[in-house]
């Protein structure tokens, strides 16, 4: 039983990584975000731009 759980968990982890890798690849070819930090309001370009006053 334990072995079955371990195998299942590892397979789910592999599947999750494959899915995120595939999504990242797909996003690199479109207008979407390639990572979660690319869409953060605190790190977006316009906000940083605002705060430095560079024009």
């Amino acid at each position, binding site marked *: 039983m334990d072995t079955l759980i371990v195998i299942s968990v590892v397979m789910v982890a592999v599947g999750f*990584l494959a899915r*995120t890798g595939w999504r990242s690849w797909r996003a690199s070819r479109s*207008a979407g975000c390639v990572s979660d930090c690319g869409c953060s309001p605190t790190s977006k370009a*316009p906000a*940083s731009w605002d705060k430095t006053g560079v*024009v």
Partner: protein
Amino acid sequence: MTDLAVSVVEPTPPTPPSANDAAVLRLALVGNPNTGKTTLFNALTGLRQRVGNFAGVTVERVEGFFRTAAGTRVSCLDLPGSYSLSASSPDEQIALEVLLGRARDGWRPDVIVVVADAAHLERNLYLTSQVMELGVPVVLALNQMDVAESNGISIDIPELIHALGIPVVPLVAKRGQGLDALGRACETAVTLSAPSRKFALPKAVEEALAPVVARLEHTGLSASAAQLEALRLLSVQHAEPHLAHVDGLEDARRETAAVLAQIGLAPQRIEADARYGWIGQVLSQAVTTRGDNGRSLSDRIDAVTLHRLGGPLLFVLLMAMVFQSVFSWATPMQDAIEGSIAAIGTLVGSWIPEGDLRSLVVDGVFAGVGSVLVFLPQICILFLVIGVLEDSGYMARAAFLMDRVMRRVGLHGRSFIPMLSGYACAVPGIMATRVIENRQDRLATMMVVPLMSCSARLPVYTLLIGSFVPASALPLGFGLQGLTLLGMYLLGTITALGVAAVFKRTLLKGPVRPMILELPSYRWPSAQTLAVTVWQRAMLFVRRAGTVIMALSIVLWALATYPRTEADLSLSDIAQQEQQLESSALGQLGKIIEPVVRPLGYDWKIGVSIAASFAAREVFVSTMGTIYGVGSDDDNAAALGERLKAERNPVTGAPVYSTLVALGLMVFYVYALMCMSTTAITVREAGGGRIGWSWAAVQFVYMLVLAYGAAWLVYNVGRALGFGG
């Protein structure tokens, strides 16, 4: 931060209403940079924000939701900061499209709120005067009234309302003052007719513009909005693709430009003169300034922060304090998290019988994820301190100080922003290069942004510094650990400038263009803005630890555990664990990698951790956590640093990790591009296709060569000089 994940950040506790919900008041926030627009947006919406991209373009779209005191539901769109509606960069253009109701997703504002800095009203009224011509109700939010008052500026609000003909609301957004009044003003504004232009352009200009205006009116724009758009089209030299379908527009635009040139009129100059003439009248009616002869507090502070010698010195001192605080303040919280994770790991482990499942949970999940999670306090402190510097207005001074250096290496001053963003994460940093118009400058900046130490490197640095650099105290309250961390950040930054200089003198030659910089008044940072910033960064970190890092930890645990071999019972327990680890799939892979990393002083465990961290840098720490979790016989999931210190070479018995090895490893991480997301974004932003891939390959290879070479030098030169290792 680096990662594999693709997601749109949605820190939205309550379900936000749909943007197309008819019962929702749609509000667009516009304003000059540095007016506190984002502070106001955060104050109004809190964490009820939704972040994504504008349809069809890669400009970020931040929408928030709130209710007014009267209960009206409001959908609020935070548009990129802009000095005028004469849009030239992609983010300015998208702001104009939204305000004109031409956004592809159909979002049209019911009310436009112009956020203005009360201390610099003249410049802010320029944008206000343009927005007032769009045919949409407008509210003027006069922010930073406290700064204006302390500067001796007195604004007669009723008189200003009278002069402008729109609702005006005084605010101090960072303290939440005036927010209810702003909500009421927006509710009232939708019931009023849209404002109109308060001044006239010279008759000759109006007549020359008429053919362009007539064609734009056919697209549904009001007369005043069409005239504003006509003036903009004359300045951008061509009609954008989305206006290409308007019959005869491009011909009319060219004809008008020729007519105006013939009679010697420059429309932008005439427009600016007319607007500022009217603004002067408004200010003379509504604004009085007392005792303007003395220098303001900001000017007096700037005398120190921008001093030719004192400025850079203060900058370095401030940065040293930032990195020292990461160590000094984080230790108690880190110890608490470390202890909690170890306790929970032990407790959970005691519920599961001895076997692979228990090892998976304790050595895989808890040791892997736990070893990364303990660095949460450092991440929070770093972003808190950087947030204070940003929100106080100091970062604009830092940009000014850095501009001299930027120009020397051949970069445009605007490159400072992407590089600064790179300290958080290279992905938004590379995206921020869009604000650089020149392609050579943009590519050069893109190539070096990943050299700025992102937050994903912080766990690697702090693990190694905390374990192998003594916590010796130095004068002025600094410590050796904090200075070592500062050294890593400086190394990345200085190398980035050097590499940019090489690119700008070889592959990406081009002239250096000047930068215009606006220095905002100093102000107290907004507690709410800081809290939102730190919370969002912390959640990103925790989410990554709970998703990508956990999945990788589980896979690496499996690789470090299987295939099972028969234990040699004559060996001690620890030796048996070590034998099993070495014969596992991960161990065998490590042995293949080992010859490559051996010249750097690394063993197979470090080699395999480096290889795993090509997915994301923090994975180095979680992989080490998993390897040392699997290779030990206790259930303590945390305290990875102690395990590294105790690690011995099985042949010589010498410590595997010395200060020199740790230093070389950190230098490797300063330089190596170990982030798939960064490569993906470079491919896209460098032009996509073969060109994008070529630049991404150049970036990856030069950084890897730099990393390997520098780590080799640190280790071998250090040993030659007798520093051990």
